[in-house]
């Protein structure tokens, strides 16, 4: 079996295919996560200002999370056809929840005394958000982004089902050819990508966390 996997990896034609798919995979995952950050972080912040809405909104997004991924992808086809777009849309929806929740809790957990001090010193709510709440919540928000990224790199494999490209294609053709070597040849890079993303984002978390906030 190891030999079969090596055979795939050593085949120059397959190498090119895998590299191309890995690039697609990364681009798809990254796009989904970036879009999710752009939506979920502001929404999370906004929900901390509209607490009555926080639970209903988050429950709704939580519900999305429970839809089986294949079903969600399939659901996207009538809306967006096949290709990269439906895959991106589905991955984006999956990526939202961890980021939304971490943003909300990260900001919520900022000590009231700190906010009171800030307000009492004459900070505007904008200054309070950008100079106090966001920097303090940053680490928690980043950990939500990390969770999302790792999840999305895994789920991006399924994009192949709707013609969205990525390493899922190699795995799918492995299934079609009943070739465990081929399946693993697609699966191993996905795992490596997820681990790499986890590591890099973990490093980033440490870098942006001042000495003071490190546990």
């Amino acid at each position, binding site marked *: 079996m190891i030999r079969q996997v090596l055979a795939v990896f050593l085949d120059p034609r397959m190498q090119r295919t895998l590299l191309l798919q890995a690039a697609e995979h990364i681009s798809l995952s990254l796009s989904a996560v970036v879009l999710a950050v752009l939506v979920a972080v502001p929404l999370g912040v906004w929900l901390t200002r509209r607490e009555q809405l926080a639970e209903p909104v988050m429950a709704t997004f939580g519900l999305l999370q429970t839809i089986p991924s294949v079903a969600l992808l399939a659901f996207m086809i009538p809306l967006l056809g096949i290709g990269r777009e439906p895959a991106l849309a589905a991955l984006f929806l999956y990526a939202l929840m961890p980021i939304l929740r971490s943003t909300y809790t990260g900001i919520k957990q900022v000590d009231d005394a700190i906010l009171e*001090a800030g307000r009492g*010193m004459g900070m505007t709510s904008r200054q309070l958000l950008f100079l106090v709440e966001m920097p303090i919540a940053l680490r928690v928000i980043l950990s939500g982004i990390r969770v999302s990224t790792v999840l999305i790199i895994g789920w991006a494999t399924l994009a192949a089902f709707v013609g969205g490209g990525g390493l899922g294609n190699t795995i799918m053709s492995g299934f079609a050819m009943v070739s465990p070597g081929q399946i693993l040849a697609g699966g191993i890079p996905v795992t490596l990508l997820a681990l790499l993303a986890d590591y890099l984002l973990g490093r980033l978390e440490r870098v942006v966390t001042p000495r003071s906030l490190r546990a």
Partner: protein
Amino acid sequence: MIRFENVSKVYNGNTPAVENLNLEIERGEFVCLIGPSGCGKTTTMKMINRLIEPTSGTIKINGKDIMQIDAVDLRRGIGYVIQQIGLFPHMTVAENVALVPKLLGWNPERRRKRVGELLPLVGLDPAEFRDRYPRELSGGQQQRVGIIRAMAAKPDVILMDEPFSALDPISRESLQDEMKRLQRKLKLTIVFVTHDIDEALKLGDRIAMMRAGQIVQLASPEELLRNPTNEFVAQFIGRDRLLTDPDVLTVADVMIKPVTVDPGHGLAEAIVTMKKRRVNSLLVTDENDKLLGIVIPKQIDLTRRGTVADVMRTVTVTTAPDVHLREAFQRMFLDHLDLLPVVTAEGTLVGLLTSTAMVDALSDVIWAEGDAQ
């Protein structure tokens, strides 16, 4: 410079947290707001920087209605220190202290200089502490930083809400001393909320005693100790404190009821009375309790018959019930007196100060202080 005019605050339709409050705070004054929990101290204080807005009435700073001033601008001119300290955990000591100056647009050099001036004021070495983060400081050090952070932009007023109550007793004591020293030196105007009467007595130039949203008494510590307006204030201050502070005690507090005789008393009888009552002197009074003189055993020659009136001496040194105890004791000490009769302005004898009473009073003070530690 801060003036409350008929200020009330009602939270969502309940009983008022602050009711029709009038208060004028002078520049350079240290005013303590004190009273039981829920009496409206914090509410009163937070109305000054508009963290809470009054339901009715006006608050003026330097003659200007604060509702006419932008809340953010107002707050930047008012220092604010809270019990939970509230330092920004992700900022260094220097960044915390320089925050309001930064909001006000001071340049970095000026901010740096200001931090260097402020840290030593509370006994922190800039070289050592400037770049530390709050969690790398003790609670007492954190609140020191909290205090200078509030002073950074030279505010007109500093508001402090129980700033020392979460600290250990030793830090609390030393911070109180430093705060008072700073306030005197820099002529700061401070509004200070506390529930600790000792703290209020120690720090306040004036103390506003509050109850149920109103000021019950506004007075200097001395005045408060000497003349609590009512039972509530007296109880809040604590009877022990009223009686054991040597600066506040008066003669009336420690004088004893003297043993008296009338001038027609026989000498033998007088000796018997002294023995029976275990005293070494008798005060001679007329039927209206007017002091006529004093008799001590030395003066009585038992071989002779006669009355008290024959041997008594007139009393040249007396004191009055409202005289400061300290003063009366000094008198006794300087004149080598064992006894000092206490006489009203009308000449009526009301008590007697003895050296024993003096020792008792002093020991009370010493014991009370010993207990407090």
